[in-house]
């Protein structure tokens, strides 16, 4: 069993509280992604699991054994670094064999495992080369190979794709996913890229300022963000937010501001009780907006001015101005609009989300 348990872990640096009580249960064979902006404590958390940073408070367990005081070599983990960290003076073969040599495997077994990994990763032709003769993608494969030959309990990935160009990144993302499906090793993956997080993770952990904001499956984060931060972080283009007041008129609940008056769907309205008469943030994803037609009711649409129309082929991204706030809408590619044109946008009521104006928690 190689589940990982992080229990109330803190990390204090001299003048900085980097991780503020993170608790996380990672199941055996699970692929968990830690995602957040730089400085959110995700890398520090990963490095504490690896044993490269000491733990100020709390416990980390790998396979039900507390590893707080264990040096990295005894934790049976493998890590892939952002800059690959290939040993520049060794050939690709020796890079992959180093961990096995250190652990005193016999030569035949080392050769078997390295060749096997090289097969999986398609780097067989490069085994005798030095890392500096390889391209970025090949180096990344070697780094992955170095991790998989050891057959460790846990894989740790520290932003492994951020040094690659966009096209290669997408390709390697798929390969990492395939690799995980094939090896089924518990993995913790750190990234700042929410697309990477959504595509790779069985579960995604969104972090900010040393705290976990939400843990969940990718679609759960997308559909039911726990707070305004997660809502804005997950999804591309990001969710639109508008400051509104919650009012009750004749049994129906409305979110209003000078440019819009939106009827709150009933299942949310039922939870609006304590928020009536108070400000709340309305959130709507660009893909839940469309060009309004006659069928769209007045209280599920609003007016906006087109600033820029980005033609992407499969869709058009409209950058809009609705009253004081900037909005983004993703609309059908057949829509014809010009800059400065005034349009009316319809809202898909199922996509409406509301957040408390002060706590930012979802309502």
């Amino acid at each position, binding site marked *: 069993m190689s589940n990982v348990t992080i229990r109330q872990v803190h990390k204090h640096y001299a003048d900085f509280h980097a991780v503020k009580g993170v608790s996380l249960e990672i199941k055996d064979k699970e692929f968990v992604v830690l995602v957040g902006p730089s400085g959110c404590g995700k890398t520090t958390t990963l490095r504490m699991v*690896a*044993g*490269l940073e000491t733990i100020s408070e709390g416990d980390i367990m790998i396979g039900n054994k507390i590893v707080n005081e264990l*040096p*990295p*070599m005894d*934790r049976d*983990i*493998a*890590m892939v*670094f*952002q*800059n*690959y*960290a*290939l*040993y*520049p*003076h060794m050939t690709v073969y020796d890079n992959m064999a*180093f*961990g096995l040599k*250190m*652990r005193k495997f016999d030569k035949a077994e080392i050769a078997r495992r390295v060749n096997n990994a090289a097969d999986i990763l398609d780097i067989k032709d490069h085994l005798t080369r030095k*890392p*500096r003769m390889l391209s970025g993608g090949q180096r990344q494969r070697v780094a992955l190979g*170095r991790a998989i030959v*050891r057959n460790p309990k846990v894989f740790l990935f520290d932003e492994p794709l951020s040094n690659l160009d966009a096209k290669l990144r997408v390709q390697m993302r798929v390969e990492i996913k395939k690799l995980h499906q094939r090896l089924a090793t518990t993995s913790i993956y750190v990234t700042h890229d929410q697309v990477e997080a959504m595509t790779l993770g069985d579960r995604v952990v969104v972090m900010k300022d040393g705290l976990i904001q939400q843990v969940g499956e990718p679609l759960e984060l997308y559909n039911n963000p726990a707070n305004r931060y997660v809502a804005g972080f997950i999804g591309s283009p990001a969710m639109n937010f508008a400051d509104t007041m919650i009012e009750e008129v004749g049994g129906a609940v409305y979110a209003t501001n000078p440019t819009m008056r939106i009827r709150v769907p009933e299942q949310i309205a039922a939870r609006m009780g304590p928020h009536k008469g108070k400000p709340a943030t309305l959130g709507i994803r660009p893909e839940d907006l469309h060009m309004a037609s006659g069928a769209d009711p007045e209280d599920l649409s609003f007016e906006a001015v087109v600033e820029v129309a980005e033609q992407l082929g499969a869709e058009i991204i409209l950058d809009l101005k609705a009253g004081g706030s900037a909005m983004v809408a993703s609309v059908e590619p057949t829509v014809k609009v010009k800059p400065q044109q005034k349009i009316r946008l319809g809202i898909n009521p199922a996509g409406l989300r509301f957040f408390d104006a002060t706590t930012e928690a979802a309502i």
Partner: protein
Amino acid sequence: MIEGAVWRRWVFFRLPMAIFLIFLLFPFYWMIITTFRPDGELYIPWYRANYKPFWTWNPTTAHLKYLFGETTFLIWMWNTTFIAVVATAISLFCGVLAGYALSRLNFRGAALLGTTIFITYLVPQTLLFIPLSEIIRTYSLGDTPWSLILSYPTFLIPFCTWLMMGYFKSVPKELEECARIDGAARWQAMLYIIIPVAVPGILSAMIFAFTLSWNEFIYALVFLSSPEQKTVPVGVISELVRGDVFFWGPLMAGALFGSIPVAIAYSFFVEQYVSGVTGSVKG
């Protein structure tokens, strides 16, 4: 390279380069020409009609014969080599370990210690030789190679430590972290990963340390007295300058042969040396 018209390349690149080269190489040329010039040409006044300072038509090996036959020059060479090699080895060993510790182990006061070590390097030898000679006398090391082998590290270790500290800082720390996750203890990570990667830095520290001890003058002058214990710089000066008479021929021959090992050391390692001083490590 300078772009543009031909004259620009001449004025801004080739001419300054030529002047610089002449300035740099002239002492060596003078050393060589004096070594092979007969005494009769060496000691004539400049206003004589046949005064030809830059060339000779009557080369002689008399000065070389004198240097190798009448003085203990070969013993000086051996002394200098022995002292420089052993002092360099000791200093490199300590410097590499100390440099690694100061750049990688985050212990309290590491930065302060690093600065302090650098400051000890700045203490002039002209001040340090007085207390040092007291120590050398106490342990009866005077007039032995060990007096120098043990006192050269006083400035070589700080120097090597400082240089290696800088170099180790340029080695990505992920390399070591990865090695430690791969199952290496700290000393194994250092031995198998960091030191092989730091070879250019170690080589440049070695060349510097070797040159500094080869050319060192004051300690050698103070701590050594008998002719057969002396090093080349001191031996040449003390045995070939008698009173106010300079034996220019043998002196220059001694200087020439004394500088050859250093020149060889430089040319042999120049590639690594340059990357050690300028380059960093690519992962």
